[in-house]
C-alpha cells in the first residue's frame, strides 16, 4: 500500500503543478511544453490504474502528435508572447474565486459520496491490447467505423481550411508559370 500511495501522491503533485504552470506561464511555448509534461504524467497514472495500452496511446497521440501540432502552429504564427491584460476589469479575480468554489463543491461531493472505496486489484492482468481489440472490433464495431469517418472529415476539413486563395482546378493540372 505504502509505495503505491507515495507514487500516486508524487504523480498527482506533478500533474497539478504542470497544469498550473501551463495556466500561468506567459510564454506560449512554455505552456505547450508544460502541457506535454502533464500528458506524460497522466499516462503514468494510467499505468498505475492498469491500463498499459491506453497509457502508451496517450503518449503517442496526445503528447506525441497533438502537442507537436500545437508547437508547429505556435511557431508558425509567431504566437510566443501575446501581451496579457484583462479584457474586463475584475474578470480574473472573479474567475479565480468561482473556479475555487466549483472545485471545492466537486471535491466535497466526491468525498461525501465516493468515500474510501478501494478495490483490491489482483495480479491477474486486467487489460491488454488483445482484449481491447477484441471488444473494439466486436461490440463497438459501429463506433469504430464512425470514428474513421470522423477522421476523414477532419482531414478534409483541415486541408480545405488552409488552402488559401481559390485555385482553379486547371491551374492544378497545368500550373501557371
Amino acid at each position, binding site marked *: 500500500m505504502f509505495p503505491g500511495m507515495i507514487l500516486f501522491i508524487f504523480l498527482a503533485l506533478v500533474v497539478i503543478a504542470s497544469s498550473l504552470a501551463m*495556466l500561468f506561464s506567459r510564454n506560449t511555448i512554455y505552456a505547450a511544453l508544460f*502541457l506535454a509534461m502533464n500528458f506524460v504524467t497522466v499516462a503514468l497514472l*494510467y499505468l498505475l490504474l492498469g491500463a498499459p495500452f491506453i497509457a502508451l496511446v496517450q503518449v503517442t497521440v496526445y503528447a506525441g502528435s*497533438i502537442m507537436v501540432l500545437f508547437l508547429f502552429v505556435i511557431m508558425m504564427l509567431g504566437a510566443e508572447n*501575446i501581451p496579457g491584460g484583462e*479584457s474586463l476589469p475584475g474578470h480574473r479575480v472573479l474567475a479565480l474565486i468561482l473556479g475555487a468554489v466549483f472545485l471545492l463543491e466537486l471535491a466535497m461531493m466526491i468525498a461525501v459520496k465516493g468515500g474510501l472505496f478501494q478495490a483490491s486489484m489482483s495480479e491477474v492482468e486486467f487489460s491488454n491490447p488483445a482484449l481491447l481489440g477484441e*471488444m473494439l472490433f466486436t461490440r463497438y464495431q459501429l463506433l469504430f467505423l464512425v470514428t474513421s469517418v470522423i477522421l476523414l472529415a477532419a482531414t478534409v476539413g483541415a486541408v480545405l481550411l488552409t488552402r488559401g486563395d481559390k485555385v482553379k482546378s486547371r491551374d492544378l493540372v497545368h500550373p501557371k508559370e
Partner: protein
Amino acid sequence: MLGIPISYYLVLSSSMFVIGILGVLLRRNALVTFMSLEMMFNAANLVFVTFAAYHRVLTGQIFVFFVMTVAAAEVAVGLALMVAIFRTKHSIDIDQMSSLKG
C-alpha cells in the same frame, strides 16, 4: 488500485478539469485556450480509466480510445481554423475576434 481510494483519483481529475476551465476563461491567446480544452478532455479520460479499473470493466478504456481519436480530429480542425483566422486578422488575440466576418 494499490490501495488508493477512488476519490483521490476523482479529486485529481476534477482539479485538472477546473484548471482547464480557468485556462479557457482567463487566457487571451486562442492557442492556450485550445490547450486548456485538451486538458479538460484529459481530466474526463482519467475519470473513465479510473472507473474502468475500479469496477474491472473494459468499457471505460474503449471510450477513452474514442475520446482521444475525436479530440485529435478536433485539434486538427481547430488549428486549421486558427491558421485561417491568422491569415486575415494577423493576430490570435481572442478579444479581436469579435465579429463573424472573416
